[in-house]
């Protein structure tokens, strides 16, 4: 009864609001709807492509939605490694292992580093932070040679270190976390200090829980960096067994020229599988990501 009544009130309220909507609001809503529709198209395309039978995949003009869905592409993808010596599970393990370790360690390093920059006074503090900001300006492509030399000279070629270590220094992560930790009042840390906490405990028990949005954002950034990374597998890995899933998928699509057209279906299925974790992580953390963008004033 009460439920019904409440619903009636909400409906009436919604109608009431609709009646008082302004013309400008209508225009804005319309534009937003168009933008949203356009940006969701690729996602729909990825999903529906994965389920298209071969006949539809090569249809011209292409269709957005699948007519007669099939799981054929997935079978094909999972059996595509039959011809090579490395099972698909190895690529998946490599990807997951590298991703989890990298994201976890990036969080540790970024937050510890940001905490020190934000709450401690030490010589060279400003200078070092400026260096991190400058590092933000370089694209990975600009430093690819130096990075290769470092990785090679440290004898990390063909090891998991080469997968993980270069990703750990995440200037944007340090910067984001620092912006957030700056907002935490100093007295909070001082109260914890007087209560008997050391710096590690202050960071873990007090700082991290209060800057969770930034933690979410850094997680997304770190994840995307490492999950979609093909260059590491291409440049630093010698053995096929050390390479990651995205690399394997890219070889599938590159093989298009020499191998059969049938691979096209496997690539479509792999595309969906690679995209899913991205989607899930973002769906889980999107609230904190948006919060971060709004409050830190950067994108």
């Amino acid at each position, binding site marked *: 009864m009460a439920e019904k009544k409440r619903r009636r009130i909400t409906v009436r309220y919604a109608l009431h609001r609709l009646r008082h909507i302004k013309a400008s609001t209508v225009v804005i809503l319309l534009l937003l709807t168009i933008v949203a529709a356009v940006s969701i198209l690729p996602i729909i395309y990825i999903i529906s492509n994965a389920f298209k039978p071969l006949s539809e995949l090569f249809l011209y003009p292409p269709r957005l939605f699948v007519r007669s869905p099939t799981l054929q592409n997935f079978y094909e993808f999972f059996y595509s490694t039959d011809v090579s010596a490395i099972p698909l599970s190895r690529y998946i393990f490599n990807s997951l292992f590298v991703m989890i370790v990298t994201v976890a360690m990036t969080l540790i390093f970024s937050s510890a580093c940001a905490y020190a920059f934000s709450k401690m006074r030490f010589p060279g503090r400003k200078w070092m932070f400026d260096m991190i900001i400058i590092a933000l300006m370089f694209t990975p492509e600009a430093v690819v040679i130096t990075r290769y030399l470092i990785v090679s000279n440290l004898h990390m070629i063909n090891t998991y270190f080469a997968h993980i270590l270069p990703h750990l220094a995440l200037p944007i992560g340090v910067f984001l976390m620092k912006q957030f930790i700056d907002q935490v009042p100093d007295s909070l840390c001082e109260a914890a200090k007087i*209560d008997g906490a050391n710096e590690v405990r202050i960071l873990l028990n007090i700082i991290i829980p209060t800057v969770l949005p930034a933690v979410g954002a850094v997680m997304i950034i770190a994840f995307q960096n490492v999950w979609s990374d093909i260059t590491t597998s291409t440049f630093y890995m010698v053995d096929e067994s050390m390479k990651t899933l995205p690399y394997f998928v890219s070889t599938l699509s590159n093989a298009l020229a020499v191998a059969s057209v049938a691979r096209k279906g496997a690539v479509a299925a792999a595309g969906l599988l690679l995209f899913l974790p991205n989607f899930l992580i973002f769906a889980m953390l999107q609230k904190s990501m948006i919060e971060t963008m709004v409050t830190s004033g950067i994108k």
Partner: protein
Amino acid sequence: MDKVSLRHVWKIYPNAKNVAPAVQDFNLDIRDGEFMVLVGASGCGKTTTLRMIAGLESITKGEILIDGKVVNDLSPRRRNIAMVFQNYALYPNLTLLENMAFGLRLRKMEKYKINDIVSERAKKLEIDHLMDRLPKDVSGGQRQRVALGRAIVRDPSVFLMDEPLSNLDAKMRVQMRTEITRIHRELGATTVYVTHDQTEAMTMGNRIVVMKAGLIQQVGTPEEIFNEPANRYVAGFIGTPPMNFIGGRLIRTDKGFAFSNAFMLMLIPEEKLTPTLVKYADHDLIGAIRPDYMTAKAVNGKGKNMENGFYGTLELSELVGADRYLHVRYNQQNRSEAPVVIRASIHDRYDEGTRLLVQADMNMLLFFDINSGKRIL
């Protein structure tokens, strides 16, 4: 035994060049169980002093002792202190219970003991029904109680409080003032309390330290500070409305010594004449009297009054509850001089512009040196 001692403590900020030190040669002994209030205008160094005791600020020179031990190089957690912050500084992610228990858990106390002591102290503060909530879900006054609770669960040597009431509204402030006093009496814990509010200082402190520009102006009980201020600054800082200062000269008359200027001649009672005061005969000095020790009545007089008073014009009449503050101007020529303020009763209603005869209780008149500002009598 002295619980806390500060010996020749200085604080000089290295980057603040050409600025006076934040704290200069601070000497103070705080007795066991004492409620010591540091009071002064903002920027006078009172908070810096407190933070040096806490260990949150390094000591440039001198030493601080807690329980007879030099603590200069000890970190805050090894000094056995508890602190209440102005903005409460509650951990936003922890429930009130966990906020209060945080320090105990870090000290590896047994769980059942923690629960016992936290719930007992929470009951004492009347917040035991809120312990499952987060800080953001309770009111400002309740947050303040939790901050207080977090300090008192630990039985520290010294409580440090940094303007704990200044974020509360006026009514809550008065309530928490008595609350803190009550808890201090119950626990008998040594407390150092920083405030800029002289009412808090007067009502709460066993002793008060008045500071200005990093220097101690006076240390004393509330009565001493109020009745025997060491200098003009203390006299003007403590008391609402503030003390009246009147420029004049100590002269000899045939009836004895008198304080006089162009508008008044006030005979000084025989018993108040100390040798130090007599030395100021025929010198300029500053007479001072609290608004509470003067009376005013409507009299149409002019010129120089000889009956320990003066004539003046009522410039402003402020009604403050049961009291009425009368602002009386005796010198119409010098508008830059502040008018004399008298605390009268609500019934003493005069129109603005009325001529008043103001009479002072001569036993309550104080004198200050015109140059050094030190009290003569």
